[in-house]
């Protein structure tokens, strides 16, 4: 299993600003993902965070808006840039450990943009 922490747990931000969310895992993991979940909605995959290289983004998500870093096997950041109220959501970090198929989710970061 993997224990995931995310910081911050919640934030209220002003339109036009940026927020960086951190994801820390207690063990080395093979894959790290970033999801967005709007209240009462499903989990939408934003991107796969690749260690030492550019993230792989899903359709509808671009690097300029959601830059992602993954400097090592246990840490990743997601930045939500130039925020608008439409970016208000819960952002979840998820990981898959070596030789396993299940994904573990962090507690999420609840972002409100005013």
């Amino acid at each position, binding site marked *: 299993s993997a224990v995931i922490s995310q910081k911050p747990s919640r934030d209220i931000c002003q339109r036009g600003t940026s927020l960086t969310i951190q994801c820390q895992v207690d063990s080395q993991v093979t894959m790290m993902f970033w999801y967005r979940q709007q209240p009462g909605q*499903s989990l939408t995959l934003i991107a796969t965070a690749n260690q030492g290289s550019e993230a792989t983004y899903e359709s509808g998500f671009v690097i300029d808006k959601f830059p992602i870093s993954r400097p090592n096997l246990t840490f990743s950041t997601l930045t939500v840039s130039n925020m608008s109220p439409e970016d208000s959501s819960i952002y979840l970090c998820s990981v898959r450990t070596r030789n396993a198929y299940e*994904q573990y989710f962090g507690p999420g970061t609840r972002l409100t943009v005013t």
Partner: protein
Amino acid sequence: GQQVMQIPQYQHVQEGEDFTTYCNSSTTLSNIQWYKQRPGGHPVFLIQLVKSGEVKKQKRLTFQFGEAKKNSSLHITATQTTDVGTYFCGGSGNTGKLIFGQGTTLQVKP
């Protein structure tokens, strides 16, 4: 691209009644996973199905994977208030990425 549909969106049952949620993919899946998210919580892995026609049980929960590996179901027998939450299926194709359905939110009336 791959799409995963899940029905129903909501289900209210009386405690003791059964509950079923269905998941359908637009493409053939390598595997399907089920997760449960309690209110205010994060998704927690329940099970993975890999083989065509596979059936797995966890106590009162029964999971099935269709013969064509494009659909799946989760059935809960004799629901309890602890079963409350949203159940998500996640389908994985050749890329290994999980694409989630919309989820089914279960409410159980005591």
